[in-house]
């Protein structure tokens, strides 16, 4: 052999080297990277989803609030479309040729091989017409789907609405949704989305290169059936919900009614509302924009977001804390000369009552009484330790559900801030005392609450010392399970025995000649309550009523706020009265309150006139404004807002002129 023999090894080495390169690349493609494996599935494997029926929502007695109704979408798979009479299709589904071209182009852009929605939400009639002709339209198919239907057209904000998912939601839910799916966007539909939506069924289908289905993958081993969504039984009573919505028609305001013993919300009205059926169907997009641009903001959920001074609702609470601490008893009297004097400044009360005790103080909502009480509270540790006393006091106030959200099962609840001593020090420097924050003693100033919190305070008083977190859903599914946190009792730290005199005072407010809401007395039912009037710098005062009934073994606690409704007795108390009567007796006796029938209350229009048509203007409470004003002259403004409890409101036509 010659020396060239060595070249054998060079050639063989080259073979081995190149073979190793091939193997290395194969190892990368097949083992190290799963990109190609996934691409293969994208090629051939397509998931076909089967959509389950969304859970039905009922009221507390099982009456349906939201159900499903079939609708039809026309789908198109562009590459399967053969030339056909496009004009006839356009005529059937009612679009122009121009629309047709646009829609078809959109479908082609989305995917040539996969079907996409061509025309949404066809009516049953259109569907029937289409079915006859479908054979002519190759590449088109009709897909059945369900949409929401609300038989009573009530509870728009309460129930919320469903819409196509946004990109952000698709990402947030880790791949459950895909574009075009529907999701609860607000209200109960959103809160209980995972219960209501059920579980999508999947069929894994294999497709060949010409996009013809080749049967199911792995003999359907990985397929699943659709599981229908769970039924939701809400705590709402459909009758009083409907009545509440009617009574607040053409008014801005809210009604919250709670069953005290269970924390179940019986009525949840936010006005102006909207018909939930508007948010469904082919016009839903336009309707949404109309509702969205309504200057009275129907999408602002007032029961849980509206910000109001609790005012009169706060006075019983203040009394209860003082009674529990033993600072006063039911017989302690304060003298009301018609004002309360701090230094040289006199803060006016609405009336001159002389020496009054708790029961009358609450019935009359005597400011002087509660200022005295608040000063006593602040100075109980001596004049030097007022800040400390305030902090101890506000901690007790918090137990009543003020200063934080209550945790209702509804998205977006607000809990407005309750000031601590530290917060006041930041605002006023350290030289503040009871005189600086006197308005807090009568539920004004820095204390603000939502209507839900006001109703909850009434539930606490009705229960004599505890509450259960208000909630809107009584039970999920057939076994009616519920989050256990909605069964816990939250005690407020006041013994039951102290509630008697407070409730007496509230009873007098409705049922005695000196009461502020005596017109709203319900025959044969002892309703306890308080009226309130919130001064509104933009226009007429807001009318407020809070209460519960009947006095013994209360069944309903209620808070009603009618913006621009004048005095508490003018609108809020009558509305509460009608609702309570309806709920407790299941009938309305046709009585008149303030000389007006219930039909007149329903018909009254109290929508404020909006100057300069500012759609974003807050047609709302002004406590924030009051707050800012107070920074400079805290005391005077505080007193100015304190309009609670002007004695008995005259018949409402008078109220309107005041």
């Amino acid at each position, binding site marked *: *052999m010659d020396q*060239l*023999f060595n*070249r*054998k090894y*060079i*050639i*063989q080495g*080259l*073979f*081995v080297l*190149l*073979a190793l*390169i*091939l*193997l290395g*690349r*194969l*190892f990368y*493609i*097949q*083992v190290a*990277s*799963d*990109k*190609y*494996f996934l*691409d*293969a*599935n994208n*090629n*051939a*494997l397509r998931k076909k989803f089967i959509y389950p029926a969304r859970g039905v929502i009922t009221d507390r007695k099982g009456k349906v609030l939201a159900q499903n109704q079939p609708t039809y979408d026309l789908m198109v798979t562009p590459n399967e479309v053969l030339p056909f009479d496009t004009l006839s299709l356009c005529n059937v589904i009612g679009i122009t040729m121009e629309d047709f071209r646009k829609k078809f182009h959109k479908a082609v852009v989305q995917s040539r091989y996969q079907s996409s929605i061509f025309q949404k939400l066809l009516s049953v009639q259109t569907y029937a017409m289409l079915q006859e002709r479908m054979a002519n339209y190759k590449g088109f198919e009709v897909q059945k789907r369900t949409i929401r239907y609300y038989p009573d057209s009530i509870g728009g904000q309460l129930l919320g609405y469903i819409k196509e998912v946004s990109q952000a939601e698709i990402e947030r839910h880790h791949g459950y949704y895909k574009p075009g799916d529907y999701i609860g966007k607000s209200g109960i539909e959103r809160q209980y989305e995972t219960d209501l939506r059920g579980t999508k069924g999947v069929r894994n289908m*294999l*497709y*060949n*290169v*010409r996009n013809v289905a*080749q049967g199911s993958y792995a003999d359907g081993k990985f397929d699943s059936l659709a599981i229908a969504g769970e039924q939701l039984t809400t705590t709402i009573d459909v009758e009083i919900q409907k009545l509440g919505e009617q009574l607040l028609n053409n008014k801005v305001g809210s009604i919250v009614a709670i069953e005290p013993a269970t924390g179940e919300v019986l009525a949840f009205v936010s006005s102006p509302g909207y018909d939930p059926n508007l948010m469904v169907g082919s016009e839903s997009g336009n309707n949404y924009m109309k509702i969205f641009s309504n200057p009275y903001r129907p999408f602002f959920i007032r029961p849980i977001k509206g910000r109001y001074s609790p005012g009169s609702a706060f006075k019983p609470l203040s009394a209860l804390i003082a009674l529990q601490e033993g600072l006063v008893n039911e017989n302690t009297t304060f003298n009301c000369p018609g004002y309360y004097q701090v230094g040289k400044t006199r803060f006016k009360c609405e009336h001159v009552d002389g020496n009054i005790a708790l029961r009358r103080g609450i019935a009359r909502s005597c400011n002087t009484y509660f200022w005295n009480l608040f000063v006593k509270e602040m100075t109980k540790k001596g004049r030097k330790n007022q800040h400390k006393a305030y902090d101890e006091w506000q901690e007790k106030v918090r137990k009543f559900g003020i200063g934080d959200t209550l945790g209702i099962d509804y998205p977006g609840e607000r809990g407005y801030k309750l000031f601590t001593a530290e917060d006041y020090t930041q605002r006023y420097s350290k030289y503040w005392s009871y005189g600086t924050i006197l308005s807090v003693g009568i539920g004004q100033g820095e204390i603000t609450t939502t209507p839900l919190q006001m109703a909850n305070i009434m539930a606490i008083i009705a229960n004599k010392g505890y509450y259960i977190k208000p909630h809107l859903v009584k039970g999920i599914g057939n076994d009616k399970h519920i989050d256990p946190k909605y069964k816990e009792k939250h005690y407020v730290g006041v013994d039951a025995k102290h509630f008697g005199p407070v409730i007496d005072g509230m009873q007098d407010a409705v049922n005695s000649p000196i009461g502020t809401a005596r017109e709203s007395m319900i025959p044969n039912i002892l309703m306890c309550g308080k009226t309130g009037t919130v001064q509104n710098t933009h226009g007429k005062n807001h009318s407020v009523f809070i209460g519960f009934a009947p006095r013994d073994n209360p069944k309903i606690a209620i808070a009603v706020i009618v913006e621009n409704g004048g005095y508490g007795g003018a609108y809020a108390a009558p509305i509460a009265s009608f609702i309570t009567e309806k709920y407790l007796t299941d009938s309305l006796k046709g009585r008149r309150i303030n000389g007006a029938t219930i039909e007149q209350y329903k018909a009254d229009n109290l929508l404020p006139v909006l100057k300069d048509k500012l759609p974003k203007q807050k047609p709302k409470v002004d406590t924030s404004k009051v707050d800012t004003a107070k920074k400079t002259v805290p005391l005077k403004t505080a007193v100015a807002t304190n309009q609670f409890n002007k004695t008995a409101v005259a018949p409402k036509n008078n109220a309107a002129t005041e």
Partner: protein
Amino acid sequence: MQQQNNRFFFNVDWITILIYMALCAVGFVNIFSVQYKPDISDTFSFSAEYGKQLIFIITGLVLGLSILLLDAKFFSVFAPIVYGITVILLIAVLVVGRNVGGNQAWIPIGSFRLQPSEFAKFGTALLLARYISSFNIKLNSLKPILICAAIILLPMALIKLQPDDGSMLVFLSFMFPLYREGLPGNLLIIFWGAALLFILNLFVSTSILIISILIIGGIFAYAHRKKVRKMINIGIIVIIAICYLFIGKYLFDNVLKPHQRTRIEVTLGLKTDNRGAGYNVVQSKIAIGAGQLTGRGYLEGTQTKYDYVPAQSTDFIFSTIGEEWGFIGCFVVIGLYCFLLLRIINMAERQRSVFSRVYGYSIACIFFFHVFINIGMTIGIMPVIGIPLPFISYGGSSLWSFTILLFIFLKLDSNRMGFI
């Protein structure tokens, strides 16, 4: 002689035949899988590709065995005639051939189609072996090199006229047997260096390449600064290389057809073209990648079953192996090829006659070229040039041609003790 004829079967390298049959079996099994449709493939059909391939394999085997019965001297003696016939066929195909897919490469004979370029390979291999084995040939002088080049370039030029670039490029593999027989290594280095530079020229801007050539040239010149002749040589090489860059660029932009350009660009990753020339490669890579380590299982490959890879039974048969048998299957197949090729080379080295050795090297390098380019293109590291995978790809002409190539060598090897 008589004695040897009686026991020539004992001298035949049975291991090689076994590997050959294994590869044919791999081919049949995977072609069946490509054609398999669960609902319509209940009965075996000889009109389907797998049925035809079975006929090709059997006839190929018969062909191979009858080659073993021939006298070993036959190939050496008739080499010029075989070469002449293949050249005539190559010319004939240009006249009477059928144009399939833009290439005039087929002569229809009955229901079969003959592809002369496949047979040109062993014609060339035989004549090359015959020439080099003739007395007193030294491949380090100009004249024999030119004659060898002429033998190789004639069929290449004719195939180029079809035009079938894939088959034409296969003839480059004859460089390695020539190298084994004494072709100066520098020539190979220059050739492949030029090819490398051509490819780099597409990647990197020409100015950067010129600067790097100057730097490298400078380093060499500095290393040989005492030797004027060498420095002159280096200078000439640098100038030629730079000129070559511009010529190469010109050739690429103006001489190559657009589809060839795209294929090269797609292979180099300069372009992504998932629907045009890149489509085959993308789908083939997906199919192979889907196999993962152990494969999806025989007849279970979705990409294979549902026709995602074009030309899957012929040029892209390896993607079926990749998908259904996984990395392990690919490893086995490549291993079989390596074993076969290294064995052929070892066998070539044990030949007494130069003719047999050159022939052995020739077929090993032809097989290897096919295997590397074919598998390389299915996994996207080689441009898509349509050449079959030896013994596995569907097709009578290629299978027979590879069979003849191999069995001639087996015959020569069985006769290695004799004189040719």
